């Protein structure tokens, strides 16, 4: 590949990866559920764009598949499904976090720092973009935080999906071409099925508890 082209690809990938991080932070402070779902769709769109850029600059056909699957599955289908669940069970739009947004933001700043510190020894191994591994680890940490901070079943599903986006980012950042197609396909279908299973459980929890608050799930102890 031509060096200038390579430089261009790296810059685009770095920019988009940073965009994914920014969206993750927006999700941390954003209280509206439907907006959160849209933000997730946008984040997935950036991931799909990264895959498409890699496919284009490296002439790797199978990475186009990855981009396409991400686009169909994570940008359109899953947000549509989650939207449907939210509308069907008519829950409150506002999500009450445990920590207020200022504290959450500070904490996520710390997570970002931690992500970069963990990734630092490995920057020489990164094949594409700058600091993409750091961003991937930060997505993981903030995803965990989102899960603990928002005590609603649907937001926990969303948090899980952002962690998943982080893994995919790590995969493309570290290995140039992403993973073999069979693995990508397997992971893709697992994520789809996982969200459907979670959806079924959300419905049942909603019916049984008349709520989506996971704090109500606290009878089993010891």
């Amino acid at each position: 590949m031509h060096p200038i082209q390579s430089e261009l690809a790296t810059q685009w990938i770095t920019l988009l990866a940073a965009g994914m991080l920014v969206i993750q932070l927006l999700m941390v402070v954003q209280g509206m559920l439907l907006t959160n779902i849209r933000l997730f769709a946008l984040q997935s769109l950036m991931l799909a764009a990264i895959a498409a850029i890699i496919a284009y600059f490296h002439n790797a056909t199978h990475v186009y598949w990855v981009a396409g699957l991400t686009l169909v599955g994570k940008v359109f289908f899953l947000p549509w499904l989650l939207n449907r669940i939210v509308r069907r069970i008519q829950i409150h739009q506002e999500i009450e976090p445990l920590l207020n947004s200022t504290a959450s933001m500070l904490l996520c700043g710390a997570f970002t720092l931690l992500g970069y510190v963990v990734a630092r020894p490995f920057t020489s191994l990164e094949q594409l973009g700058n600091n993409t591994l750091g961003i991937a680890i930060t997505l993981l940490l903030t995803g965990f935080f989102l899960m603990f901070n928002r005590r609603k079943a649907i937001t926990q599903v969303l948090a899980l999906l952002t962690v998943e986006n982080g893994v995919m980012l790590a995969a493309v950042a570290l290995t140039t071409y992403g993973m073999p197609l069979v693995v990508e396909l397997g992971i893709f279908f697992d994520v789809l099925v996982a969200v459907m299973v979670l959806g079924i459980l959300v419905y049942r929890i909603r019916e049984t508890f008349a709520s989506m608050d996971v704090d109500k799930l606290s009878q089993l102890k010891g």
Partner: protein
Amino acid sequence: MTLLSPILIVPAAAALLCLVVPWRRMMEGLNIVAFAVSLGLGVGLLHAVQAPPCVVTECGEFFRADALSAWMVLLITVVSLGTSLYAGRYFRRDLAAGAVSAWQVKEFFVLTPLFTAGMLLVVLANNMGVMWFALEATALSSVLLVALYNRNTSLEAAWKYVILGSLGLALALFGTVFTYAAAVDKNSTNLPSFNWSHLMAMAGQLDPRMIKLAFVFVLVGYGTKAGLAPMHTWLPDAHSEAPSPTSAMLSGVSLKVALYALLRFHILTTACLGSPFSRHMLLAFGLGSMFLAAPFILVQTNLKRLLAYSSLEHVGLICVGVGLNSPVTIFGALLHMGYHALTKPVLFFAAGNIHQTCHTLQMRLMGSGLVKVLPLTALCMGLAAVSAMGLPPFGLFFSEMTVLSGGFASGHTFVSTLVLMALLAAFCGILYQLTRILAGSPKVTRQTDARAFDGVPAMGFMLGTLAVFSVWLPAPLLGLMERAGHIIGGAQ
């Protein structure tokens, strides 16, 4: 002869057939036949992996089985077979009592073979990415089984299970990606291989820092699925709220399948680093699980939670056996996997019978004297409990002794003493709790159960197998375990 793909296809086909078959009896039969056929094929595999070159591959190395995989295949199929023998009668009683609908029973008979097929794919896949998504598939099929009763507690258990399990698996996927990245060759444009056989062959050239980071992620990730403390919090909930046949599968093999995945990474990490890094971690987590389980066993009030914590303790011991890394302790750990897989389902089957008769799992409400109410069930439970406590003449005694003596002999006096203490505490706990409900005379008057033989064939099958293999290990099986031990020990 092709062996590996039929082992996978048979249960998967049974699941699909159960989806279209309208009769419950036929679904039961299909499950039993499918698992019996898989078990037969597993025995065939047992012989196949002993002949040179000691590895069976199929579909262009997509499937690969060595001695360790063959051992896992045997455990998975035998526990599935026992479960399917038990499940028919169990659900007949549940249906009669109105606890489940016909649709939920169908759900069970469709999901259980899928669960088994997923576990078989985990141990037969050569590709670590495929192994990951097979594990995720087992988690997804079993979570609906945990939620089968649709009570609010079972939904809670299922939610915790799926959320913690998925988080764990996401971490494990990070670890898998890191391992993959460690194999990237910067000077070539070829895609690095995801295959275990290939990774093991080039273990010396992998980036050691990356492999270390990967192992930490995998340990926490697959460790969650294997129920290692402190990531075990889903385990007692899921085990106690699932229908008893599912609890038996979860505890009997599903934990060990996750452990198998972890062991594969341990083998690779040790081969790459040449240092005791990964086994020290296994040792620490194993000991932690054992010590965490013991007090919970002593103060437990719920029968199935008691059994779940006992599983946590046994998984801990298996990790310790591998972590001590002498050939004797590794052999003991493998032996322990097998005997535990035969023992724990019996306890869960008996607990299921008790649950259906007493309509509670709280041992206080059951009261004493179950031996008078359900004589055969109480007898089987008593025998299995003797085994689970680690008393002779059952196998768990021998495997625990093997791990302990290996530990002392290889100079790990401190660790072995700790293991002995944890085992003693668990022994006292199980003895105290179970004698309280089994022995004595009943205080609560209950209708004597007319169908006292319910579940006895399944329990008899597992206990019989356990008793036979406790005193007599056939040469092929012994050879298989020794070979598997060599694989874990790095075959130095």
